[in-house]
């Protein structure tokens, strides 16, 4: 079930009604849990079992770990959780990738190995809920949190439908305390929660699916070469799509949780206003970036073991971050590029960071544009169907290539430029602010007028019902 569906609207209305009926808190949590399984099963019922397996294993691992102070024993128990979770993720997400690479490798050695045809399906959201369960057991191993006292609360942490399939990636410390006392949205939470859902749907349905995705798809799925203008417009279109699609999902997730009285952390903070890549990754997909920082980068030693190790740790973290996004070499390369950009930035800041001019508003604006531009270029490797396609796309973008193929109309091309300008301007203006602050300064009628317009455009937007980009990860 996706947020941009009528089924979800109906489902959510039923959940809201049930949540506000005079049941006990325990019954309400149970309702939410069942609803979350239905939400997940609407995609593929058998994979609910996988969700149960992940939930049950980490529940017992955590309880077992909490009973001992022996560090060695705790490490061994943690290992069970790591093997189980990463094993499932490895099999379902990386099985085909590993097999294909193994076949290529043995072929180099002159062995023609033909494996049986594999039909492994990727369970939706597995990368997200695996990270939630992993963070839970690692936090207990590090003694940062106590194991959950209630299996119901813990199951809800893993399964709660607003975050289940595409985040934000929750931490136990953020969510479990909210399960202790009854959550019921105040009128303000309800009103703003619905506003966030409308804003999220507008990002997804109108801007991402209605305007930018058709152009980006047309350019990236083009089998031959595209012209340089098509290449750049397609590349910027995907940069916009990535944010609008995923931010749309996150706003819907945060908004629907808020309508039920639950609080989720932010997942985006106007990332295209970032000045440099260190800043960028604190604004973009925050719950993943912070997960990778806390559980991978810091575990590897972070920046505590000298410059060279810091660079290595950054590269490893970003390469694995790339691999998390998809079991393909082009995702790994994208991770490598992202890591490389962070390393270059650290070196540049070391040598040029003290220059006063770089602290002026104008220079900061220029650096923001540069960050956006470089990220858009690196994203070609992320979006293209393969490394070869990405290289072909780079070839078109940087060679002033021409093409007589019409991939999109003039109004579509103009719309992309308008959306990009709108994104850059709004992110720049709001970079140290928030949606809440912006809306709080508005008169009530303007708030209402904006919501009305957005709802009308969402309902009238033509086009197919695309799923969210991050569902595939």
């Amino acid at each position: 079930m996706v947020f941009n569906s009528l089924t979800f609207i109906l489902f959510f209305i039923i959940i809201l009604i049930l949540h506000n009926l005079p049941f006990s808190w325990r019954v309400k949590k149970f309702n939410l849990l069942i609803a979350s399984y239905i939400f997940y099963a609407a995609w593929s019922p058998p994979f609910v079992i996988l969700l149960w397996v992940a939930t049950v294993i980490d529940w017992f691992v955590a309880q077992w770990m909490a009973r001992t102070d022996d560090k060695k024993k705790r490490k061994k128990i943690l290992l069970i959780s790591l093997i189980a979770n990463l094993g499932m993720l490895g099999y379902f997400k990386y099985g085909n990738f590993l097999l294909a690479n193994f076949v290529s490798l043995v072929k180099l050695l002159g062995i023609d190995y033909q494996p049986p045809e594999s039909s492994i399906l990727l369970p939706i959201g597995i990368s997200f809920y695996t990270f939630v369960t992993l963070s839970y057991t690692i936090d207990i191993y590090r003694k940062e949190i106590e194991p959950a006292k209630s299996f119901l609360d813990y199951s809800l942490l893993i399964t709660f439908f607003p975050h289940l399939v595409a985040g934000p990636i929750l931490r136990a410390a953020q969510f479990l305390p909210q399960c202790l006392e009854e959550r019921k949205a105040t009128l303000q939470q309800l009103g703003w929660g619905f506003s966030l859902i409308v804003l999220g749907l507008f990002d997804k349905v109108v801007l991402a699916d209605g305007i930018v995705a058709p152009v980006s798809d047309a350019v990236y799925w083009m089998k031959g070469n595209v012209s340089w203008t098509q290449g750049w417009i397609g590349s910027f279109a995907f940069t916009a799509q990535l944010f609008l699609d995923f931010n749309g999902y996150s706003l819907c997730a945060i908004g629907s949780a808020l309508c039920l009285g639950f609080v989720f952390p932010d997942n985006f903070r106007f990332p295209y206003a970032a000045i440099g890549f260190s800043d960028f990754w604190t604004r973009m997909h925050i719950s993943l970036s912070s997960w990778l920082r806390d559980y991978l980068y810091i575990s590897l030693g972070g920046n505590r073991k000298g410059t060279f190790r810091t660079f290595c740790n950054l590269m490893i973290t970003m390469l694995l971050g790339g691999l998390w996004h998809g079991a393909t070499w082009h995702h790994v390369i994208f991770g490598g590029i992202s890591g490389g950009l962070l390393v270059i930035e650290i070196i540049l800041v070391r040598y040029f960071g003290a220059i006063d001019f770089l602290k002026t508003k104008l220079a900061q604006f220029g650096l923001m544009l540069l960050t956006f531009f470089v990220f858009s270029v690196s994203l070609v490797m992320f979006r293209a169907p393969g490394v070869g396609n990405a290289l072909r796309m780079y070839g078109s973008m940087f060679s002033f290539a021409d093409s007589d193929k019409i991939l999109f109309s003039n109004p579509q091309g103009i719309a992309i430029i308008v959306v990009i300008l709108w994104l850059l301007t709004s992110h720049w203006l709001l970079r140290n602010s928030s949606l809440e602050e912006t809306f709080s300064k508005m008169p009530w009628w303007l708030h209402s007028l904006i919501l009305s317009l957005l709802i009308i455009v969402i309902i009238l937007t033509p086009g197919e019902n695309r799923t969210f980009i991050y569902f595939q990860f």
Partner: protein
Amino acid sequence: MSINTANDRLFKFRIGRVWVTTFLLVISFFIVWNVFWFTHYVVPLPQDDAKLWSYHRRRVEREGNNSIVLIGTSKMQRGFDQNKFTDLTGRKSIQLAIVGQSPIPILQNLAEEESFNGIVICDFSEFIVYQSEMYPNSFNIPNEWIKVYQESKTSDDFEFRLRTYSTYLIANPTLGANLPEALKNVITGKAFEKKTIDKMQGGVQPTYFDRSLIFNLDDYLSQEEKNEIIEKNRIVPIKAMEEMIEKYPPQPTKFLEIVRKIEGYVEKIQARGGKIIIVNFPLSGELEKLNDIAFPRKDFWDVFTKQSSARTIHYKDYPQLQFECSDGSHLDAKDTPQFTESLVEIIRKDLPK
């Protein structure tokens, strides 16, 4: 807990006033919107696209050996009266024909579904079947629709139903090929020009929910507009047939290969207890003459009949199936109940009791 949450930044606003006003504004807008568009040939109908087809294809999966499946082209969609069929037989049929497309990929898809052993009534046109084998990429649309079906889930049916019902609540005109085009057309006023139903509801054919195409144009069009559409529909197939004859003159040997391919699928389904009934639908006028010249019966249809283990019915062999088609290739709305009744009488012994 992190301070970076929407809840921490929550601000006080007049929630009642904001949301009641929003609700009233949206409702008022759609009242005006509906009144405007429903008087401009926009009717609450779904579009005949891959999702609708996929929804009906899943019905075949559910109904299994009880299903009666209709495949072929728009001739089947316009010529076979599904309601009349239900009245006469007490059975519901499932419409899987696709406008202008060969039925072979659909037949293949049904043959490959091991559990399918229902009844298939196929509209067979020598021209469409032969042409599709000659031109590259001519199976793209049926294959794409089959793919949409294969990738769909049972839960999609519910969403599909809801979306279909919503078309009855809110007029859904096609203002442009995509959102930016629609915006441009709204700004230039082009979106509000009066158009005929087929243009207003997109390039995709508007249809009833059971996928019988809107053939009763009287309900929506003036006589002048109706004549224009009939004339267009009359000329298009003639031109297409002339072009094909010039490019790929029909050859009985090639046709025999196609017949054998079809027979493979027919045998597969019939071996499982299913039944295939192949019907050559009526043609009229210039198109009929051209068809008789391009595909002489003794070299094509009769060969097909001899080679096929399916039940084959040609309209020329049954006076009760002969009707005058205004546009040359589709039965007129007024004749479809009678045609369906006559066809049911002919095939009644093949239908389950």
